[in-house]
């Protein structure tokens, strides 16, 4: 496969790994913020290629994992209404809320459908005029433009039975929150797909204000190893900066078309993150112009106190404070079949990857 195999070339990978081992002086901790990176790192067995001095920590970039229990509880309440069809991306249906999950509600008769795109959700709305279709919007700057296009299409088509429950989030505020909390890292492997939309400049503050290394990375094994090497060099030279490794997709200023769609439809708002609580300005909410598509405005509901397993350390894992094997539930009561925390649900979740690929190492 062109543009993929080149970045999985064994010789190249082993050469990069050897170069990292040679360049590393002392210990380094880098955080991959993006769930796509977490999943790629484990799928390609990257930890087995890195010297022990280099520690990769997963951060809060798996959209399913950081979605708060409140959001799941709301989606469940909506799904229990006979006139509602819930439309969502796959993983979300298995995330446990306080008392149930969308998957369990589906077994009991709720109409919950899995789609691969927002536009597919519009088709469901068109062919079910007697029902209200609620699309669960999750994801970062990467998926939010797709939701923006969906909302604009719904507006253009005059669809009145299509609503959005948004848990869309943006990346920089949570990265700043991590740093403010004192997470112990030397730099970030920055999310390549987010940066393809926003441009790499959104990470500048991390290097300038907090003196942290930043490399915007692609998702193939050679990309990730090259990014680690670039970070090691930045730290060795004590010159943290924002560098782009993923030059085939990312520029300094990003994709202006997608940025315009985003800002046309969404505005920043405070958002609830699993493990962090509310982070100001870290969410995306529909602008007033589009609020007729806002599920929470059209069908207001309130969820009670939420209920989480006190032994689940997902929150601390997302904050880079703990690793999956620190958890007493992992592999015992918490498995991909019976996830207790969201990090076990998604293929991009740190616990899920750990459980799948390393539990018997």
């Amino acid at each position, binding site marked *: *496969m062109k543009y*993929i195999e080149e970045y*999985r*070339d*064994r010789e190249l*990978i*082993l050469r990069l*790994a050897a170069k990292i081992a040679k360049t590393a002086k002392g210990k380094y901790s880098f955080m991959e913020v993006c769930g796509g990176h977490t999943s790629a790192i*484990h*799928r*390609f*067995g*990257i*930890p*087995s*290629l890195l010297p022990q001095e280099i520690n990769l920590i997963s951060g809060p970039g798996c959209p399913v994992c950081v979605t708060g229990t409140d959001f799941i509880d709301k989606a469940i309440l909506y799904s229990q209404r006979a006139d509602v069809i819930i439309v969502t991306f796959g993983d979300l249906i*298995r995330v446990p809320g306080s008392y149930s999950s969308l*998957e*369990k509600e589906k*077994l*009991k008769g709720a109409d919950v459908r899995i*789609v*691969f795109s927002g536009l*597919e959700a519009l088709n469901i709305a068109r062919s079910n005029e007697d029902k209200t279709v609620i699309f669960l919007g999750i994801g970062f700057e990467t998926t939010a433009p797709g939701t923006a296009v969906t909302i604009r299409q719904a507006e253009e088509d005059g669809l009145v039975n299509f609503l959005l429950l948004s848990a869309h989030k943006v990346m920089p505020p949570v990265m700043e929150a991590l740093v403010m909390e004192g997470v112990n890292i030397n730099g970030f492997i920055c999310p390549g797909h987010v940066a393809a939309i926003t441009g790499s400049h959104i990470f500048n503050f991390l290097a300038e204000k907090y003196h942290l290394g930043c490399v915007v990375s692609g998702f193939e*094994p*050679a990309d990730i190893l090259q990014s680690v090497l670039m970070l090691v060099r930045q730290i060795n030279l004590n010159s943290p900066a924002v560098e782009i490794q993923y030059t085939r997709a990312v520029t300094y200023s990003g994709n202006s078309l997608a940025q315009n769609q985003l800002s046309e439809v969404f505005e920043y708002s405070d958002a609830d993150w699993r493990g962090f609580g509310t982070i100001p300005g870290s969410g995306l909410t529909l602008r007033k112009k589009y609020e007729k598509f806002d599920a929470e405005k059209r069908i207001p509901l309130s969820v009670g106190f939420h209920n989480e397993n006190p032994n689940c350390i997902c929150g601390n894992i997302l904050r880079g404070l703990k690793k999956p094997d620190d958890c007493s539930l992992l592999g015992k009561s918490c*498995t*991909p*079949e019976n996830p207790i925390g969201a990090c076990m649900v998604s*293929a991009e979740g740190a616990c899920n990857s750990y459980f*799948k*690929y*390393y*539990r*018997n*190492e």
Partner: protein
Amino acid sequence: MNELVSLNHGSGGKQANELIRNLFTRKFGMPDPLTDSAVLKENGFTLAFTTDSYVVDPLFFPGGNIGKLAVCGTVNDLSVSGAIPKYISASFIIEEGFPRNDLEIIADSMAEEAEDAGVRIVTGDTKVVEKGKCDKLFITTAGTGFIKPGYEHISFGEKIRSGDKLIVNGPIGNHAIAVLGARNNLNFSSSVLSDCASLNHMIQSVLDKSDQVHFMRDITRGGLAAVLYELVRISMKGMNIDEISIPVDEPVRGLCEVLGFDPCYLANEGKILLVAGEDEYEKILSVLRSHPLGVNSEVIGSVVDDRKGNVVLNTKNGGRRNLDVPSGIQLPRIC
């Protein structure tokens, strides 16, 4: 709360196993290990007996249809047990309003496939249910065949040893991708055909030439990963797999990248995993490769003594990790 059956229980993975082992086989008093066919000894003969239901959606897909699948699937379940398939039954649950024309096409495919495979469809049943009470058409087939003396061990994997080689008879994942492409909701079209085929002649040609076939299993729901874990369970050994040698066609690999699937978990309908004794694996490989359905056979790894209970994947790019047990729903109604 009374637990409800979910689609996960039909996935061929962990939950499906749990349901089968903790509910059905326990109540029916069926012995472990569970094999693709029951192996029954009666009056000096060893009989293999199997059954399978087909609910694939859509009924017609590139490279086959539900009828062809229903024959191949049962023929293959018998063949991988080391049996020569002989007789098949076919039961139809048809939704009211189903086009008779389609039923004729499906029955023709079944007749044709049975003839090619050298089996006879000898009994069956037909039920029609009200509209909405089943989805168009479900088929159940059962089949029997004889196992020649000396082949009884194959289904139980009694002769598996470390050093044995693991062989697949060609590229994996084509059936799942073909069926998925035929569904309209994903909006992709591809040239990928289902690998749906009766493998009994190919398997027989191997068994005729070598007595070192230590185990076979058809790679259906749950994909290669499910079969490898089954193998780990019954042999109590470890499996060492080289990702680079697992055959995957280019379009399948590409679509897997786009859709986020791993070919190791995708269903096939014309692929087996064969465990070959170390001394004769080259011979077995060349017999497989000389058959049209095994031209692209490859050795993908070996049985090892260390890392018992694990399937270790040496990734293409030089890394190493576990290949995970398939769990939860991969893709519903693929067969």
